[in-house]
């Protein structure tokens, strides 16, 4: 990877990553995230991991992010107004993250890993190499992944599908549970909903 290409891509990645956390509108955040993912995919390809780079673009940028878009639309999440308060918490968060980055950067600076150290073979990063590894050394992990996806499907459907229709007209468990603990949080909640309706 040449210096100018690295500089360009790294700047793009950093700017778009910052965009993810600085944009007020979730759709804009998402666009920034997609750019970050695509730039990362280009990095993968530049580092010789061609197959993974394309997979990143197909699955991560092309499919998972669409899911985010759907949910943002489904819930009609608007841009936030200026967030109030929590300045202490925010600056603490930013400081903690900055400290972490500084430490990792220091480590990166000390790690002796020049690019010329190892010349990868022509098969490096091809789909055949990956497949051979997946179906031999990583067989268990591969099978575990399939189960993981099944769990995610079952879980997502269980949570997001429509509520089953209640048979009895008894008070909803939600209301009952809140009053049972004596925390009467439901009253303002109810009035807020009534006001909005």
């Amino acid at each position, binding site marked *: 990877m040449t210096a100018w290409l690295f500089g360009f891509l790294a700047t793009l990645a950093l700017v778009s990553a910052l965009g993810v956390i600085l944009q007020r509108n979730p759709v804009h955040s998402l666009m920034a995230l997609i750019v970050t993912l695509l730039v990362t995919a280009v990095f993968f390809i530049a580092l010789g991991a061609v197959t993974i780079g394309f997979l990143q673009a197909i699955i991560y940028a092309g499919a998972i992010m669409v899911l985010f878009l759907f949910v943002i639309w489904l819930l009609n999440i608007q841009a936030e107004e200026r967030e109030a308060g929590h300045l202490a918490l925010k600056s603490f968060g930013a400081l903690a993250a900055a400290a972490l980055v500084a430490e990792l950067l220091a480590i990166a600076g000390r790690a002796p890993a020049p690019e010329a150290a190892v010349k990868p073979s022509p098969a490096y990063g091809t789909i055949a190499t990956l497949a051979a590894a997946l179906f031999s050394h*990583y067989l268990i992990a591969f099978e*575990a992944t399939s189960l993981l996806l099944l769990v995610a499907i079952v879980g*997502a459907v269980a949570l997001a599908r429509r*509520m*089953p229709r209640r048979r009895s007209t*008894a008070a909803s468990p939600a209301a009952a549970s809140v009053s049972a603990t004596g925390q009467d949080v439901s009253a303002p909640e109810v009035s807020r909903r009534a006001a909005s309706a």
Partner: protein
Amino acid sequence: MNHFNPGALDILWLPLVPLIVVAVGAVVVLLAGVRVSDDDSEGLGWIALAFLGAALLFTLPLIGQSSSTAFAGAIAIDNYAAYFEITVILTAAVTVLMSLEYAPDFRLAGAEYYSLLLFAALGMMLMAAAGDLIVIFLGLETMSIAVYVLSGLMRQDPRSNEAAMKYFVLGAFSTGFLLYGIALVYGATDTIKLGPIAAALAGAKGGSPLLLAGLGLLLVGFGFKVAAVPFHMWTPDVYEGAPTPVTAFMAVGIKLGAFAAFLRIFLVYFGAAATHWNQVLWVIAALTMTTGNLVALVQGNIKRMLAYSAIAHAGYVLVGMTAAGAQAGSAVLFYLLAYAFTNLGAFSVVAALERRGERRDAIADYRGLALSHPGLAALMVVFLLSLTGVPPLAGFVGKFYVFSAALNAGYVWLTIIAVLNSVVSAYYYLSVVVVMYMTEGEARPIAVQAQPGMVAALALSLIGTVMIGVYPGPYMGAASSAFKSALSHTQVSSRQLKLRG
């Protein structure tokens, strides 16, 4: 490596059979549940139990096998894996028993509920049997994702939704740390298999900043999962909001799974390099115990109180981890077993008192319980005493072993802190007893009928708690043989290294 050669892979089915049985069980429950309404999901629970029983049977042949690995080191075959798998299966079984009436009462989606329970157990078993970091990671994710959903399965209840959300955000956050830690460890050692990593840690690369930073991030990741301070923020809210059987499963099962991997990585494989990490662990252990116990003092909700108590107990386990070595390892394994039964029992009582979609989890709800439900109250006393560490119950023996291991390893101050904490904890455990026995109850207490599932869950927990406490010998023997068999992996690999070198 470029040429696919399945013959070169050491495929061994035996260690996988329990995992496969649980996975098949989860799918069968899911399919069987297609036409079952949420109001009569009890049959699904029995199917799940049957599969758990079968899995338990298939775990037995694994006991006593000489330590080895399969699938190119991805799966470890040893008593350690078998020990944790059996404990996890028992935990899952008690949880299912606890849920047989609870799930329809709270209108949980039965098929999804039981199948996710089994999947979560599968993830835990995978973590216990894993021999490399990526399988541990995938096991952890399978477990976590299933439990994220389980804790939010009471969909009409805002508290349950909130619990799922908080658990998910912080859980996924910690996953990021764990993953980055794995990346650093991989970068430092060129492997994700535990044996070679341990060798690298003990060898010339041991002081590499990359490796140490990786270990630090792994510590953070596991710290979140076992709810060690300062990574515990999610615990009380999630425990309070989740359906009670799920809370029990979280308090016990997740701890078992996470500690199985945590202990295997740090205590077993990196034990020789304990100087790198046990100072940090000392601090975390002390903080965890103290915070957990002190905050538990002021809780008004029994599930929150038990949540902080679970944090405190994670602290005791970390005391054992800090001590490192074979004695401490066995003690910690034993402690986890004792903790499992005791906590399952306590949560069973909590679940037994909740009826028909009504949560009764404020400590105030336990007023006069001794009069209205003397049996449940007595059981609760037993479990709370065991959690406090009163002889001759399981909790006492567990603490005894762990603390003496810490003393033997020379951690006098840590042991003193731990003992002081135990004394503090007595206050809040016993205050529940006081509430149950010495205060007036409501005029019309809620009737709780003895139902078979709940009775079985309570009985199993009681038997476990008492048996382990009264007659700890065989269980301690099992724990120590489990830990030794895990240790022998590292000896084999270091011997191989010597031969090669």
